[in-house]
């Protein structure tokens, strides 16, 4: 089955060489790897902006950028025209001669770095130069890629900057550098001063389905309206001032598509002029509701504030009627948002709109409006779960961090699978249309909607409020947010298949194609496992295994609150988690975030020691016992079984001293020797020995090896002869001086005779090989062997949705005759 178009492309080979930055400190002799080397060596030096505790320093500063934007959405041309007035507050101690802007729309120009540098082959250069035979000489391109190429070729994309002027409307010199722009200020902007400038701009909106841009329009040709309808999702829709920070100065890392955004906080005043029959959802609070909403809608909105379930502001039927609207003219929707790092919005006449107030008890922000906007294609799935999931997210995340500080939290359905902005998120899951006009959704889609809404709304906390640098450190928002969405989905329903569990990363972590978490976003090979799942699992392990919930939750909340509405870096996270938990976690962050090691701890051997008392009356008896316990050789046993008598048995009268006293008999010479030695012991030595002999404990030596490289605590479970079990955690520090093999003496009471032991029985540490965790070894069936053994049956596997479609029938009764 071949469903590609084949294009003849020259196959190039490429290879990736992974190097890590060389350390100043080198182990130049012997095989030793210091897994516990101070993390401070790798972190930036603390200073007055960010201190050694990981909190904002005494001179911490950040810039503020306020925007007043008037923008018009031209539905016909699918274009944006905007005028913005930017007020830039220079809170830094430095003087700025120019401002840099991010022009993300330029990333879609054919000559952008992103387009020109997008490689055709993956990083491991799968098509090799020697593969020139058969169809190997051909490479493939998908229709979807062709669609993208065609859209980019057919449309004039990127910003058209019409004018950049100062407050006095005099033109300013500006220089566009790819997806960035430098605007030279007429006079240098001193510390603690502000300046204003204006930009008039426009751009053609991308078709999200064709290009994939985290925003854009989606066309619905089948709607009952000439020309159909569109949903517009607008993000990265205005030239934004680049970040200027204490650790990077201007953040001149151009948008390449993967690394998301690094932004400043500010206040927004935005007026959007859209077709008069559109409904607009946006970051912030609607300022002119009386002029854009009907009195009925206003009434419903008011009743939604205290409702205990979502209230329709625009119902399904009303939205359906709007779909065929031919209304002319425009309306201007006016929104304001305070102290946000970005602004996004959505506009369509297709939107159903529901809302429900979320009351934050004992909070400075007691009331939040949770809302969802979705077309009929989202349907009942959205009606049931979107706004409910928004509220659940706020409840759970606020408990771990801080009260949600914004007036609104919105989930919008459109062409974007999932993307986050302050107060507003775009989420993709939808229903399935059937020929009879009905719509249904599968359990998988339901789970996905709940999961994705929680994830995207959760991003309000990370990175919208805890404003990390997404462009460089994706894990700081995606990883931390995935960790929390795992908690929130488990609290929704533990059967919701979303939570981030250690088993999720095993295949990834044991693979030899990966990069450390601490890798810049645009260089990461696999963003999903690298920036979402691995850090989320690492934090889960830190919480459940290493620190425990109390210490972790305290430290994590401390991090969130320290950096609320501020800009943390990785070092601030690492330092805060250590400083607030009081636990040295250098080894943990180094192993999980700075290396590509995996966890594979093997319990190689256990052997038992017995205390030698040196007392011949004790030891000789024990040795006799050991001797007698040895199995009898077959040659002797079978002689006995055949009834054969030995010479000794046949000659009972012929005995001597040695027949009365075996080789383990104690002599007075032995006793005298022991008594002399014992008498020479110090009194404390005699006491210790006496007690040890009395207690007669079991001494076991456990040999472990660290095959994966990543040091972790050893979670031991011991099982004793009497059926008791005991759990024992050996802290990761056991590997400190011996990172590859280590032994541990474990002493148990006389009655606790060990029969077996297992490391990490519950699979909490992402250990990639379970078989070597058991001593004695157990046969662990492979996945396929287990599958073959166990018929997957039971209620869970019944096809209830399908089977229930069958109509009830009267049983056919065969006529029975004799």
């Amino acid at each position: 089955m071949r469903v590609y178009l084949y294009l003849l492309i020259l196959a190039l080979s490429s290879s990736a060489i992974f190097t890590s930055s060389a350390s100043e400190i080198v182990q130049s002799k012997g095989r030793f790897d210091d897994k516990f080397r101070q993390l401070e060596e790798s972190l930036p030096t603390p200073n007055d902006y960010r201190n050694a505790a990981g909190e904002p320093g005494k001179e911490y500063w950040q810039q503020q950028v306020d925007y007043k934007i008037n923008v018009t959405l031209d539905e016909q041309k699918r274009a944006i025209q905007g005028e913005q007035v930017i007020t830039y507050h220079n809170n830094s101690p430095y003087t700025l001669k120019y401002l840099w802007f991010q022009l993300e729309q330029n990333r879609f120009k054919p000559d952008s770095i992103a387009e020109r540098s997008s490689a055709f082959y993956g990083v491991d250069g799968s098509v090799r130069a020697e593969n020139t035979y058969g169809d190997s000489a051909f490479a493939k391109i998908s229709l979807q890629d062709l669609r993208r190429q065609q859209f980019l070729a057919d449309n004039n994309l990127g910003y058209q900057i019409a004018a950049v002027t100062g407050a006095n409307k005099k033109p300013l010199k500006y220089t566009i550098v790819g997806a960035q722009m430098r605007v030279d200020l007429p006079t240098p902007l001193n510390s603690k001063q502000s300046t204003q400038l204006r930009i008039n701009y426009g751009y053609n909106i991308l078709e999200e389905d064709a290009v994939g841009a985290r925003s854009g329009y989606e066309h619905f040709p089948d709607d009952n309206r000439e020309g159909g309808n569109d949903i517009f999702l607008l993000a990265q829709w205005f030239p934004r001032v680049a970040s200027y920070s204490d650790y990077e100065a201007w953040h001149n890392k151009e948008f390449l598509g993967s690394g998301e955004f690094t932004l400043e906080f500010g206040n927004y005043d935005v007026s959007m002029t859209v077709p008069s029959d559109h409904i607009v959802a946006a970051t912030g609070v609607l300022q002119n509701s009386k002029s854009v909403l009907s009195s009925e809608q206003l009434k419903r909105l008011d009743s939604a504030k205290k409702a205990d379930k979502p209230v329709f502001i625009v119902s399904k039927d009303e939205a359906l009627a709007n779909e065929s609207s031919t209304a002319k003219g425009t309306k201007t929707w006016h929104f304001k948002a305070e102290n946000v790092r970005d602004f996004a919005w959505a506009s369509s006449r297709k939107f159903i709109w529901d809302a429900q107030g979320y009351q934050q008890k004992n909070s400075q922000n007691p009331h939040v409006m949770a809302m969802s906007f979705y077309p009929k294609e989202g349907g009942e799935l959205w009606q049931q779960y979107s706004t409910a999931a928004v509220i659940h997210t706020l409840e759970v995340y606020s408990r771990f961090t801080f009260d949600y500080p914004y007036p609104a939290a919105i989930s919008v359905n459109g062409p974007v699978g999932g993307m986050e902005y302050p107060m507003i998120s775009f989420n993709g899951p939808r229903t399935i249309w059937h020929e009879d006009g009905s719509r249904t959704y599968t359990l998988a889609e339901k789970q996905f909607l709940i999961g994705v809404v929680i994830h995207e709304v959760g991003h309000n906390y990370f990175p919208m409020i805890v404003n990390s640098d997404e462009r460089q450190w994706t894990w700081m928002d995606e990883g931390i947010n995935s960790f929390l969405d795992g908690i929130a989905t488990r609290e929704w329903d533990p059967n919701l298949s979303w939570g981030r569990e250690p088993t999720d990363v095993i295949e990834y972590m044991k693979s030899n194609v990966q990069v450390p978490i601490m890798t810049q976003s645009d260089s990461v090979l696999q963003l999903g496992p690298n920036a979402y799942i691995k850090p989320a699992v690492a934090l889960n392990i830190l919480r459940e295994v290493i620190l425990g919930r109390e210490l972790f939750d305290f430290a994590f909340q401390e991090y969130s609150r320290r950096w609320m509405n501020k800009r943390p870096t990785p070092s601030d996270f690492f330092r805060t988690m250590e400083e607030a938990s009081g636990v040295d976690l250098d080894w943990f962050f180094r192993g999980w975030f700075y290396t590509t090691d995996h966890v594979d701890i093997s319990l190689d051997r256990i052997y038992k020691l017995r205390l030698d008392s040196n007392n011949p009356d004790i030891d000789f008896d024990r040795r006799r016992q050991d001797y007698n316990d040895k199995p009898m050789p077959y040659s002797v046993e079978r002689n006995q079984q055949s009834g054969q008598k030995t010479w000794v048995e046949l000659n009972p009268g012929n005995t001597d001293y040695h027949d009365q006293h075996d080789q383990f008999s104690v002599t007075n010479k032995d006793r005298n020797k022991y008594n002399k030695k014992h008498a020479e012991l110090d009194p404390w030595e005699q006491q210790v020995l006496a007690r040890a002999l009395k207690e007669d404990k079991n001494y076991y030596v456990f040999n472990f090896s660290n095959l994966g490289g990543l040091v972790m605590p050893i979670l031991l479970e011991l099982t004793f002869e009497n059926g008791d079990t005991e759990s024992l955690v050996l802290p990761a520090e056991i590997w400190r001086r011996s990172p590859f093999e280590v032994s541990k003496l474990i002493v148990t009471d006389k009655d606790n005779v060990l029969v077996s032991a297992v490391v990490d029985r519950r699979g909490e540490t992402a250990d990639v090989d379970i078989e070597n965790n058991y001593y004695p070894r157990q046969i662990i069936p492979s996945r396929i062997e287990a599958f073959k053994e166990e018929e997957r049956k039971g209620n869970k596997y019944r096809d209830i949705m399908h089977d229930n479609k069958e109509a009830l029938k009267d049983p056919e009764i065969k006529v029975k005759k004799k």
Partner: protein
Amino acid sequence: MRQLVLILLSVIGLSLLAGQAHGHQQKEAYTSIVFNQRSGMLEIQHRFYLHDAEHAAQQVIDSNADLISDPVSREAFAYYAISTFSMQDQQQHPLTLTYVGTELQGKYLWVYQETPITTNMEGFYLKMTTLQELWSEQTNHINVERNKHVTSARLHIADSWHYIEVAKASE
């Protein structure tokens, strides 16, 4: 072929597929090819995100495909998956893989295949286009594991037969 092209056109017409990595369609599958010396079998375990698999099934099999509720849809997806995965030996002779079954586990759909271990399995040619014909960002990650040594490949849409060396049996 005409039929297939039509399927593909309808596929790209659907809106949900164009999200990016952040869009939470994971667009990544993991396949483990493991030498099970105990059973003498080479075990092939494909792990797909259920949600990705269901979207795929709704396009290549039936728009109503429901992988949690309907075992028939699951089997159909499994057959689609194994039809888009192939292995050759070092001489580029195809290896016959036996379909073992499919099962759901949490957020994953697993598809199993196997073939007896033979001598000279020191390397394989692999090809896996599963889901790539639906969304071009799909990456199929393959781990080949013998005696705990793992060699990996990440197959992208542009890739054809990929040769992967197997860790030495004696290691």
